[in-house]
């Protein structure tokens, strides 16, 4: 297939301005999405532009591999605190995840519940809109309310408003140590209560997940003395919910959270995978309604990963619960039939369509990806 491979923002802008049909924006291609249109790979617009560890700021071009960024940060004992998921295991894809792809999808991992989402760490963007115009918004400083916050709008717009070329991110120190407490809970309702107790404590829990086959996991990170102190205080809080064991080896703890982040229990096998964002205490009831083969709960219950038989319309089982469901793994046919994203209610749909029409007047950027599925 023909693919555009611009090496610079200017070149990309020219290509978009001159495009005569739909374009499919690609970073590392690890998210398993595809659609009509000529592929535009941003992978060639790569490299670290600026890194100031003392200011906790990183400016990188969008095609920069996440692994490269993590290595650069690790050398200064820092990291991306929003803990972006690596989709390759779940989706069986290859390639190198790029920071542009992470930002475009607002991809955040277990630490989202404490530290915030990708969008909360995004300080500035440069992008090429659907007319081929280069637009800047935000900057590289941590507090910036100069004009509208298009930075947030671009995070999670999946390339439908513009093609990201550069992002500025706030980074954070990598803590000295971490530990994971496991509570022997079997029932989701009990697990959600345990997670709420931990997250509502002053002990800075940075991960709260429940795998029905492994129990409730609670993560703490920080200086070693803090971690051991908080682990013992959390143990007191959690014991009423089930027997508590502490995994204090940082490697073991980080392996547990890498698996949760990447939804490891769903790797390999068949079935569609959905990702639901709900109010944490609604999660047990919602999950029961899904009749899924297997579920995982992250974000204290606020994020549900559900494995269901292929082609299942999970949204139809959701009912009137506040929140949204995204179809992460499915065949192209199922994706086309059900839509990847939750249809927005009016008048939000009208606003979103209006924004897309303004940022991409010809409707050429990832057309149809975020719009409503066409009724058969």
């Amino acid at each position, binding site marked *: 297939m023909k693919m555009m491979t611009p090496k610079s923002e200017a070149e990309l802008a020219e290509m978009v301005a001159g495009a005569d049909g739909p374009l499919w924006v690609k970073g590392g291609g690890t998210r398993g999405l595809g659609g009509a249109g000529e592929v535009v790979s941003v992978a060639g617009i790569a490299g670290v532009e600026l890194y*100031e*560890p*003392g*200011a906790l700021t990183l400016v990188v071009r969008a095609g920069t591999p996440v692994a490269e960024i993590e290595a650069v940060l690790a050398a200064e*004992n820092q990291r991306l605190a929003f803990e972006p998921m690596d989709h390759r295991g779940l989706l069986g894809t290859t390639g190198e995840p790029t920071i542009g792809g992470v930002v475009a999808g*607002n991809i*955040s991992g277990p630490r989202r519940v404490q530290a*915030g*989402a990708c*969008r*909360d760490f995004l300080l500035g963007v440069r992008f090429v809109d659907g007319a081929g*115009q280069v*637009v*800047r*918004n935000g*900057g*590289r*400083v*941590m*507090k*910036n*309310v*100069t*004009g*509208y*916050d*298009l930075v*947030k*709008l671009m*995070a*999670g*717009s999946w390339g439908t408003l513009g093609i990201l070329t550069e992002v500025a991110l706030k980074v*954070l*120190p990598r*803590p000295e140590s971490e530990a994971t407490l496991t509570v022997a809970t079997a029932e989701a309702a009990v697990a959600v209560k345990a997670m*709420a107790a931990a*997250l*509502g404590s*002053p002990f800075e829990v940075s991960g709260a997940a429940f795998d029905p086959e492994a129990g409730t996991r609670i993560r703490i990170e920080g*200086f070693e*003395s*803090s971690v051991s102190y908080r682990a013992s205080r959390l143990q007191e809080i959690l014991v009423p919910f089930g027997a508590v064991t502490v995994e204090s080896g940082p490697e073991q703890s980080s392996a547990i959270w890498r698996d949760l982040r990447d939804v490891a229990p769903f790797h390999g096998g068949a079935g569609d995978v959905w990702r639901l*964002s709900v109010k*944490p*205490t609604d999660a047990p009831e919602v999950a029961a309604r899904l009749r899924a083969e297997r579920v995982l709960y992250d974000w204290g219950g606020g994020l549900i990963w559900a494995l269901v038989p292929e082609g299942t319309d999970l949204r139809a089982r959701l009912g009137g619960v*506040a*929140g*949204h469901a*995204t179809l992460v793994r499915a065949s192209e046919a199922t994706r086309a039939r059900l839509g990847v*994203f*939750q249809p927005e209610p009016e*008048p*939000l*749909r009208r*606003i*979103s369509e209006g*924004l897309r029409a*303004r*940022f991409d007047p010809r409707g050429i950027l990832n057309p149809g990806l*975020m719009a409503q599925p066409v009724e058969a």
Partner: protein
Amino acid sequence: MEMPRPNPVVLSLKDRLVSRLKQVLPEDAVIHDEAETRAYECDALTAYKCPPLLAVLPSSTQEVSDVLRICHEEGVPVVPRGAGTSLAGGALPTADSVILGVARMNEVLETDYENRFIRVQTGRTNLSVTGAVEEEDFFYAPDPSSQLACAIAGNIAMNSGGAHCLKYGVTTNNLMGVTAVMMDGTVVEIGGAHLDAGGLDLLGLICGSEGQLAVVTEATLRILRKPEGARPVLMGYDSSEVAGQVVTDIIKAGVLPVAIEFMDRPCIEACEAFAHAGYPMCEALLIVEVEGSEAEIDMQLGLIKQIAAKHNPVELREAADADEAGRIWLGRKSAFGAMGQINDYMCLDGTIPVSSLPMVLRRIGEMSKEFGLDVANVFHAGDGNMHPLILFDANTPGQLETCEAFGAEILKLCVEAGGCLTGEHGVGIEKRDLMLHQYDAADLEAQMAVKDVFDPAWLLNPAKVFPLAVSEARRAQPQAA
């Protein structure tokens, strides 16, 4: 500061508008007497005043929707107002506008400790949100200095910050959902108790849009459990360069204080006279605060003091008890008030990369001599959010204009240094005409396109944020009555 000329057609509509509004609001919620509308002639940017055509004080989302629908039908501009504490003129009316104040909407609608959120009407003050959850040891993190008075509505409009955002983020990082009303009266619900948007991040877009996209009437806010304790340490240095280096070293060492505040000599002197916090008299003072258990605080402050000591401080002192900690913070939080007792002042809030701090402070010092006006600096050093206070005498003809010209030069300097015009106060009218120093025409066009979608007639707070010449073609044209 120029404002658009009032539209005579709108001015002529006053009586009709009053009678239509009285059909949807209680009698006392429609303020049209000229003596009374004067109460809404300005916000905390008091150099600019203009009484509105009238003011309305709705009590519910439905009433807000009714008001907006009527004003939309009549083609009348609406200026939303929280508590009127904007330092940027965000709530400054024009003579042909209706002030829509949300002050009567201050109820707590829901508190949920298990899911850690509170839902409030946006007229509620910032501090009283924490007040509503304090008994359970929770708090709402963003803490602008005006938190006693400022309303959540304004916090959302300006995406307010505060001293503790180094750790907890600003309003947008703590806002989970809103009920908002668009200019045509349409009520929208965005977000809620769940995290992140299913579609485009419209919540992130509305936060910080300065009341130009919609009027936010209800908000779901993240609440957090209070830390076990907190303690500040004071450190004084002979130069701001050294203090800037200390800030960088602390951050690099992997300690993330909850706040790092900076004051220079003029500010230290004023605050000390006001709050008697025991500040040392030196060129640069840092207040660094950490949180946790007693032992955790000792450990973190131990690390910080080690770093501080390497740079030869003239003073290095931990708060001995809660009382001393309170006074240290009182000094900092009353900085604006303390300066206000001595002089008229203009407060800027440009943000810069922490690394360019020494250069920017040096240049401000030089400019202070050039313009002949003194400057006191107080700011959130951890995130580079500066608050230079330019001192002037409003009664001396020409000083306000000199002060504004000086302020503009400082803000341009912030942008040149890699920063921005405003870190937490907003653009309003104050920085409106400087926007082209930070953004080019295409950047502003993209932002204005967003307003076109939410408010096609540009009736909601129209004369703010964008330079008047840039937004001129879009702003409401006179309509036939």
